[in-house]
């Protein structure tokens, strides 16, 4: 315990939980595809393709399980520029968060976009994934997205 202001006591407290979560058949397929450096979405009964996929149509609640290939490129639908990344952010230099609608998808997925400078970001721009050297089946198998044609 360390002494705080006014002689009152304070102490640091750290909480850690090593959660392990089951994925199920739809997310399990999506993560397996990421491990293979591919994207898959789920097609709902109404013909909409959801990426990232959920086991249900968020508008009707109907089950969905038909997986279809999407991407790898996509379009930025909105974005936010981070000048000072936080410790838990995926990149340690300035970057953009973006919602990205992959080719063939009707919904957008959240990820980071690495353009180096804010002026290179624009709604509607095309981006493509930068994969990690080692993929394990996680949303972070995509290190980030980058403008199409940069690599």
């Amino acid at each position: 315990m360390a002494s705080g202001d006014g002689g009152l006591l304070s102490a640091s407290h750290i909480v850690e939980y090593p959660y392990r979560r089951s994925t199920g058949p739809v997310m399990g397929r999506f993560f397996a595809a990421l491990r293979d450096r591919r994207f898959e979405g789920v097609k709902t009964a109404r013909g909409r393709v959801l990426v990232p996929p959920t086991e249900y149509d968020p508008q009707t609640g109907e089950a969905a399980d038909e997986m279809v290939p999407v991407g790898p490129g996509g379009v930025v639908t909105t974005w936010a520029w981070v000048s000072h990344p936080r410790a838990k952010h995926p990149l340690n230099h300035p970057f953009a968060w973006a919602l990205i609608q992959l080719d063939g998808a009707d919904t957008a997925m959240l990820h980071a976009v690495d353009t180096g400078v804010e002026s290179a970001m624009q709604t509607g721009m095309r981006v493509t994934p930068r994969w990690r050297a080692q993929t394990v089946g996680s949303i972070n198998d995509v290190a980030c997205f980058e403008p199409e044609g940069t690599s």
Partner: protein
Amino acid sequence: MRDVAIVSTAQMTNVRREQRRNEVEMLMPVVQEAVKRSGIPKGDIGFTCSGSCDYLAGQPFAFVSALDAIGAWPPISESHVEMDGAWALYEAWVKIQTGQADSALVYSFGKSSMGDVPDVLNLQLDPYYLSPLGIDSISLAALQARAFLEKTQYTERDLAKVAVRSRKSAKDNPNAQLAGDFDLEKLLAEPYLVSPLRVHDCAPISDGAVAVVLAADDTARNACERPAWITGIDHRIEPHQPGVRDLSESPSTALAGAKAGVASGGIEVAELYAPFTHQELILRDALGLDASTSINPSGGALAANAIMVAGLTRIAEVANRIQWGSIGRGLAHATSGPCLQQNLVCVLEAK
């Protein structure tokens, strides 16, 4: 339906960091004051319901120890929501409607300063696709802000005006944390925090607590001169993934507002829980509010934003104005989840 009203409220003055007191010590005087003002003997209160967040305190079941502030003996009828206190008020209202209680104590407390709020709020996100990316609450709000600015006629100047007005109004609110006169041009010259949001677009981090007492029918009429009657209350939620929603609007707020009776007009005051400036504009439009309604005369969440407290505080602020006799009809809104995912609207009237 039974007639249910708010008969008393009490708040802690919001601060950036409550160094001296623990949560029980923070909460106890607020609860005591609300109960005392209601005039209802504590033992006669039929139901107690609270809202708080264990991750904010870093302790599982943290709300249980907060009961030490209430005096749960002889054993009381009690419940808790892991949400803003506005939803605890909704549960208490339902409990009274069922006839199981004639009065209820509702409170919430949040010591946001103990942890890192943007990181703590990451944990309310989907743990498969969103939370592992490490995105924080301000970044998510910024994604929404850009979608809103690009899809509407609003500008960053409009956002800054919300901040200036809120903090000016807060000068009259003794419980506000961030109040004062700010220069619009100077604010717009500040750098971005997460573009397109600047520091003034974001709510401060606050420690706070609030309590209200609800009562039905004659219990309410006997408790105070001008009960703030709840004439409509409803809450609605949208899908969680931000990429399946149109972030520039809030259909759940519009629907909750319609169900709560906002459309019948005469809303003199609206207290909207908008922790980011652009969210106030989205909410205003969703509720169809125009210049005849005074928005956030308390300063709103931009003046004090104790997590889990600020929504119930909006309801308390409207109820206070009805009890003081300064308005006859008002609206309170509370939100939960990322980018206004879930919204509650409560209409209060003097009758």
